[in-house]
C-alpha cells in the first residue's frame, strides 16, 4: 500500500528522469531549520517584497510616468481644474477612480515601510548574535547591499507620484547631488536631463523603480536565500546543539507550514494597515511645484536619519578663491554622506574588523547570545543610538510643534547627543551585558532560587538553591570564549615584528579588551564572605 498511485508515480518518474528532481527534493525537503522567533524577522522583508512586487504590478497598470501637463478632471473636488503632471493625475486616478486602487496603493506603501523595517530588525538580529561570522560574511555583505538598494528603491518610489511632499524629497536629493564637488552639477544635469526639475526625472525614476532596482533586489535576495540554504541557518546555543549539527524542524512539512503561515501574517498585517491607516495622502499634498513647500515635510522613516543629520548640521561651507572659484557646501555634503558612510561602511567592515581584532578564523554555526560578547553588543547599541538620534531629530519640527519644545533647543540637544549618546549607550550596554553574564555565572555555580527559606540548626537562615533545568544550563553553557590574539612575546620579552608597530600594539590591546572573558562561568563558589551563608546552605542542597 505504500506505493503511490500510478497517475502520480508516472508523472514523478517522468520529471525525475529529466530533472533529477527526486534526489534534489529528497535532500532538501528534509533540511532542518532551527526554531527561534528572531529567525523569522528576515521573512518580514522577504514577504513584504513579494507583496510589493504584486501590488506594484497592479499600480503600473494605471500609473503614467510622465511629467506632461494635464488639467485634473477626476472625482476629487478640491483639485478640479488644477494643472498637474500626468504622474500626479494618474496617481489621483488610482486613488479615487480605480476600483481598489487606493487600498492597493496603501498596501504597497505600507509594505515598503515594513520591507525596510524588516530588513533592519533582521540585520540587528544577525549582528547581535554574531551570525555574520565565518562562513557567512559574504551573505552579510549581500544583506548590506540589499539594504542600500532598498533605501534607493524607496527614494525613487516616493518621488514617483510627483506630489508636493515627494517633490520636497526630490529637491533635497538634487541639493545633495549638487553639493558634490566638481562633478555635482554634471551629475544633476545628466540625471534630470537639464535644469531642475525638468521633464525627465519621473520617467527615469520609474524605470529604476520598477525594473532595474527590483531586478537587482530579486537577484540578490535569491543569492541571499541560496547561501543561507547551503550554509545552513545558525542556531541558538542549547541542548544537543553543536557546530556540526542543526537542531530544529525539517523544511517539509513543519518549517514550510510555519513560513507559509508567516507569509499570511505579514500579508494580513499589511492589509490591515492598508485598510485602516491612511498613508501618503497625495491628494492632500497637492501637485508639485518647486516654489511650494509644506511644514512637516518629511521623508519616509528609513530616510529619516539623513533628514536628521541635515537638520543637525552646522552651516559650514568653503568658498574657494572668494565666491568665484566655487563653493563646497559642507552643510549639505557632510550630513548627506558621513552618517550614511559611517553606518554602511561600519556594517560592511565589522565582520572583518572583528576577525582582525580577535584573530578568530573558525567557522561559527552557533549564534552568540548578545550578552556574551559585551563589546560587540555595546558597539551595536551605540550605533543604534547614533542612528536613533539622527532619526528622532529628523522629526524635530513635529516634536517641537506637538510637545511645545523650542525648535532650536531640539537642534542644540541633538548636536550634543549625537556625540554623547553613543558613548553613554556603550557604557550602559556594557554594564548591562556584564551584569547579565554575572547572573548566568551565578545560575551555573549556585543554581536557581527555589523560593524555600530554610532555618539552620544554628539559627541561620538560608535560601535553598536548586540546579537549573538541563536546557537552560545548556543554553548558558553555550557561551564560547572569544579568542585573543597571542601577544607572542618571546623569552626576552620582545614581541614579534607585527605587534611592534603602533597598529600592532593597538590591535593587541583591542584584542585583549574584546576577547577577555571577565565573567567565566566556572568560577566556583568564590563569591566572598557575604554569600557564605547562602553558599553553605546551597552546597548541602545541591550536592
Amino acid at each position: 500500500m505504500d506505493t503511490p498511485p500510478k497517475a502520480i508515480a508516472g508523472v514523478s518518474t517522468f520529471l525525475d528522469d529529466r530533472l533529477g528532481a527526486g534526489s534534489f527534493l529528497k535532500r532538501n525537503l528534509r533540511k532542518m531549520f532551527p526554531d527561534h522567533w528572531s529567525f523569522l524577522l528576515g521573512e518580514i522583508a522577504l514577504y513584504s517584497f513579494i507583496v510589493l512586487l504584486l501590488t506594484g504590478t497592479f499600480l503600473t497598470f494605471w500609473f503614467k510616468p510622465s511629467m506632461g501637463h494635464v488639467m485634473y478632471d477626476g472625482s476629487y473636488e478640491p483639485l478640479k481644474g488644477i494643472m498637474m503632471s500626468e504622474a500626479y493625475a494618474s496617481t489621483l486616478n488610482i486613488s479615487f477612480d480605480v476600483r481598489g486602487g487606493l487600498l492597493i496603493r496603501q498596501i504597497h506603501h505600507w509594505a515598503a515601510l515594513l520591507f525596510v523595517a524588516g530588513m533592519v530588525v533582521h540585520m540587528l538580529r544577525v549582528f547581535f548574535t554574531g551570525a555574520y561570522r565565518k562562513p557567512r560574511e559574504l551573505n552579510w555583505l549581500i544583506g548590506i547591499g540589499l539594504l542600500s538598494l532598498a533605501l534607493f528603491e524607496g527614494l525613487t518610489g516616493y518621488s514617483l507620484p510627483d506630489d508636493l511632499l515627494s517633490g520636497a524629497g526630490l529637491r533635497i536629493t538634487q541639493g545633495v547631488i549638487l553639493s558634490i564637488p566638481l562633478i555635482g552639477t554634471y551629475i544633476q544635469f545628466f540625471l534630470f536631463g537639464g535644469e531642475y526639475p525638468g521633464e525627465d526625472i519621473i520617467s527615469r525614476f520609474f524605470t529604476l523603480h520598477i525594473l532595474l532596482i527590483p531586478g537587482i533586489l530579486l537577484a540578490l535576495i535569491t543569492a541571499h536565500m541560496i547561501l543561507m540554504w547551503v550554509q545552513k541557518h545558525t542556531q541558538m546555543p542549547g541542548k544537543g546543539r553543536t557546530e556540526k549539527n542543526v537542531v530544529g524542524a525539517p523544511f517539509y512539512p513543519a518549517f514550510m507550514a510555519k513560513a507559509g503561515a508567516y507569509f499570511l501574517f505579514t500579508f494580513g498585517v499589511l492589509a490591515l494597515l492598508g485598510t485602516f491607516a491612511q498613508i501618503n495622502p497625495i491628494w492632500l499634498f497637492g501637485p508639485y511645484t518647486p516654489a511650494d513647500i509644506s511644514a512637516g515635510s518629511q521623508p519616509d522613516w528609513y530616510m529619516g536619519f539623513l533628514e536628521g543629520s541635515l537638520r543637525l548640521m552646522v552651516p559650514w561651507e568653503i568658498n574657494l578663491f572668494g565666491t568665484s572659484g566655487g563653493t563646497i557646501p559642507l552643510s549639505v555634503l557632510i550630513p548627506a554622506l558621513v552618517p550614511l558612510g559611517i553606518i554602511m561602511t561600519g556594517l560592511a567592515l565589522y565582520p572583518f574588523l572583528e576577525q582582525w581584532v580577535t584573530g578568530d578564523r573558525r567557522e561559527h554555526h552557533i549564534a552568540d547570545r548578545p550578552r556574551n560578547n559585551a563589546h560587540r553588543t555595546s558597539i551595536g547599541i551605540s550605533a543604534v543610538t547614533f542612528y536613533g538620534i539622527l532619526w528622532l531629530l529628523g522629526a524635530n519640527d513635529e516634536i517641537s510643534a506637538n510637545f511645545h519644545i523650542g525648535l532650536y533647543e531640539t537642534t542644540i540637544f541633538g548636536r550634543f547627543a549625537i556625540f554623547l549618546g553613543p558613548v553613554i549607550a556603550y557604557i550602559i550596554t556594557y554594564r548591562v551585558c556584564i551584569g547579565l553574564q554575572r547572573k548566568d555565572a551565578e545560575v551555573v555555580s549556585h543554581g536557581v532560587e527555589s523560593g524555600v527559606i530554610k532555618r539552620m540548626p544554628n539559627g541561620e537562615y538560608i535560601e535553598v538553591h536548586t540546579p537549573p533545568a538541563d536546557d537552560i544550563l545548556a543554553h548558558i553553557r553555550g557561551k564560547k570564549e572569544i579568542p585573543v590574539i597571542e601577544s607572542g612575546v618571546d623569552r626576552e620579552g620582545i614581541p614579534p615584528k607585527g605587534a611592534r608597530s603602533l597598529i600592532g600594539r593597538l590591535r593587541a590591546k583591542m584584542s585583549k579588551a574584546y576577547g577577555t572573558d571577565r565573567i567565566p562561568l566556572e568560577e566556583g563558589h568564590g563569591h566572598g564572605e557575604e554569600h557564605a551563608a547562602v553558599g553553605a546552605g546551597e552546597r548541602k542542597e545541591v550536592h
Partner: protein
Amino acid sequence: MIGTGRSVNSITARRRHPLARFAVVALALGLLGGGYALAAPTGSTADAAVASGKADDVAQGKDLFIAHCASCHGLNAEGTKSGPTLVGVGAAAVDFQVSSGRMPASDPGAQAPRKPLDEWVTPQAIDQLAAYVQSLGGGPTRPAAEQVDPAKGDPAKGGELFRANCIQCHNFVGAGGALTYGKYAPSLNESSPTQIYEAMATGPQAMPVFNDSTITPDQKRDMIAYITSVRSQVDPGGSGLGRIGPVTEGLVAWIAGISLLVLAAIWITAKKRQAHS
C-alpha cells in the same frame, strides 16, 4: 481746628492708619481715571462712531479695554513693554484675537495660544471692544458674512493659493507646524472662516499680513473654501494619523506593524511539536 483737639487727634490717627496711603493712591487714581474718562471720548476719531450711532459701543468698549487689556497695551492702547500699541490694528485684529481666546493673554509666553473664552467675552463685548479699537486709528475691519462664506469660494483655486502662501508654516492641511524661538503656526482646524480671514488681513503674532492687494478678498474666500473643505473631509484611506505626514506613518509601521509581526513570529515558533507520548 483749635479747640477740637480730639477730632484733630482722630484725623491724625486716621491719616497715619496703615491703609491710608492706599486710600490716597486709590483716590488719586480714581480722580485721574475719572477725569480721563470724561476727557477722552471728546477725541475727534470718535466722531464717526457717534455719527453712526455707535458711540455707546465705543464707550462700552473702552471700559472693557481698561478692564481687560490696558495692563499690557496701555490705557490709551499706546502699548507698553509687555504689549504692542493697538492704534491702527483695526476691528479685525480685535475680533480675531479675542474671539479665539488668544487675548487677553494668560501669560507672556512666546506666543498666545488659542484657549477657551472668558465669561465676559460675548459677541457683544467683542463688538464693543472692536468698535473702540477701530475708533483709535482705523485698520482692517471685520469681513462681512458673505465675504467668508465657504460655499461662495472656489476650493481648487483656493488650494493653489493655500499651498503657495500658507502651508510652509501651517502644513499641507493646516495641521500646524513649528516656528523658531518657541513660536508656532497653529492648527487651522478650530478657526472659523471669519477668523481665517481676519488672520490673513491682520497678520497676528508671527504671521505675515496678506492684505487685499496681495491676496484679494475673493481669493481669501477661495482659500477659506479650501481649508474648510479639506478639514471636514473624511479620510478615504482610513485613519488620517494626524495628517502630519510620514512621521506618524513611520511610527505606525514600527509600533503596530513590526510589533504585530514579532508577536506573530513568537507565537508561531512557540508552538513546539509535542513528543509522542
